[in-house]
């Protein structure tokens, strides 16, 4: 059974402007995409800014309601069966937001451990382990507002692992991390996969996607362009583009650029 099932998923946003928000406008952020993710798989969701990646993740983590279509995690609907899902998943968003900046890293993690209802006798040990993992043990009791962007991002990573999730959603998790920090995170992701964690990853780093993901879906303006293993996607590069690239080894980035540009008719 697939851990994540997405079928004909649609999400629209209605915004209003003008006096009393009378000029209504509907934005179709996700337009009927379908994919599934198997247990223990690292699945990549790639696309330009505004392609609908984050919106898809927000629906999968029970933060947003789908407009229509099927969206199930661990066999449960993300809208209406949130209780069965939330304690078994977690998520990490890129950037320095999503944590309490006026609290210390340790206080942040302890608080989220409480929200995930982790027993007090294992909570403190887990917090220490995670601080060690993200290399923040020596700054654990310092307010996050004094941290660099990369350090704040590492607190986010630790927060996302606080409940030892079965399914982890990573939305551009290496944003703000230096190359060493990014490599450490990739190492953590590999270890989690080896332990059976299912991971859905969005990233703009094609090397990262190629290295980590078993399968990749590329979306554009809310629509699915292609889905397959990195190798399959690379093999779809047209002969013309292969000549243009003029390199022995075709990268995922080459294939991605062709796919995204190609769908514009370029």
């Amino acid at each position, binding site marked *: 059974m697939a851990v994540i099932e997405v079928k004909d998923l649609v999400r629209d946003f209605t915004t209003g402007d003008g006096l009393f928000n009378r000029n209504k406008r509907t934005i179709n952020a996700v337009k009927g995409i379908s994919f599934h993710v198997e247990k223990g798989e690292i699945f990549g969701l790639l696309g330009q800014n505004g392609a609908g990646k*984050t919106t898809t993740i927000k629906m999968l983590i*029970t933060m947003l309601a789908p407009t229509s279509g099927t969206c199930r995690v661990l066999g449960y609907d993300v809208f209406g069966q949130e209780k069965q899902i939330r304690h078994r998943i977690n998520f990490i968003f890129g950037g320095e937001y*999503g944590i309490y900046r*006026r*609290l210390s890293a340790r206080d942040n993690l302890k608080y989220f451990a409480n*929200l995930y209802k982790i027993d*007090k006798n294992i909570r403190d040990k887990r917090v220490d382990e995670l601080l060690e993992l993200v290399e923040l043990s020596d700054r654990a009791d310092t307010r996050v507002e004094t941290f660099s962007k990369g350090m704040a991002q590492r607190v986010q990573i630790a927060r996302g692992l606080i409940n030892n999730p079965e399914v982890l959603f990573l939305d551009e998790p290496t944003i703000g991390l230096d190359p060493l920090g990014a490599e450490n995170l990739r190492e953590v992701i590999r270890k989690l996969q080896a332990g059976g964690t299912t991971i859905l990853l969005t990233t703009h780093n094609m090397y990262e996607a190629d290295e980590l993901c078993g399968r990749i879906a590329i979306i554009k303006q809310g629509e699915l362009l292609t889905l397959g293993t990195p190798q399959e996607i690379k093999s779809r590069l047209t002969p013309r583009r292969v000549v243009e690239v003029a390199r022995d080894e075709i990268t995922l980035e080459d294939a991605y650029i062709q796919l995204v540009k190609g769908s514009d008719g370029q």
Partner: protein
Amino acid sequence: MKSASVIWTSMTLQMKQTFARNMFKFTLFVGPLLTTIVLGEMFRFSGADSFVAYVVLGSGIWSLWNSIAFSSAGDINRERFTNTLSIIFSTPADFRKILLGKIFGNTILSMGSFFLSVFFAIILYRPTIYVANWGLLFVALILTIAAFIIMSIFIAYLLTLSRKTTIWMNCLEVPFALLCGFVFPIENLPQVVQYFSWAFPPTWAVRLLRYPVTETGYTFTEALIPLLITMAVFALLAGFLYKAIFKQAKVLGTLDMA
């Protein structure tokens, strides 16, 4: 037990981070002083009873309202901008308990504003204060806090639906203080407006609080019964609204700014 832990940790962390904000320190310490001076000068020649009722207690209640309403609404706004609102909403913890913990934390801090206002009023204007029944005053104070907590919960639920929290905060502050008679009797308002005043628990809480000090106007029981009824109505309304509002927040996507 874990539910109590969610409320407790939300409360303590709320107090910790709220107190770290300079704006809150201003609201807590300077706001009450300014409110007391404005009301003190307005009521300086209005008689001892009015002075105690509308300056000593009025400034305290207004400061309490400012601190609770502004910090609760402000927190939702702040957490929405920092994306923590949507994150805590998506955890397994009951979001009602998280909000309740935060409101408790704000209430405890806001009590500082109340007592500081009373202190400033006494120090600056040295009014003659007569309390007929300290026991009733204590009960009235506890019920007043409970009434404000229920209103805060209600407002916090509603504000999750709108991203324009700051506008709502400013729209609520002064009109609510006037509507509920914090600084002058609601009988001074047009009759039609008074019907709205009667619907809100703080109107009756204020009357209840004033009785042990002034022993005029509504008696303790005459204020207590409507207070309990309106509190129960707002508590029930908040309970009914919760599911609908949070379902709607997920549909509208108003929990974060992205």
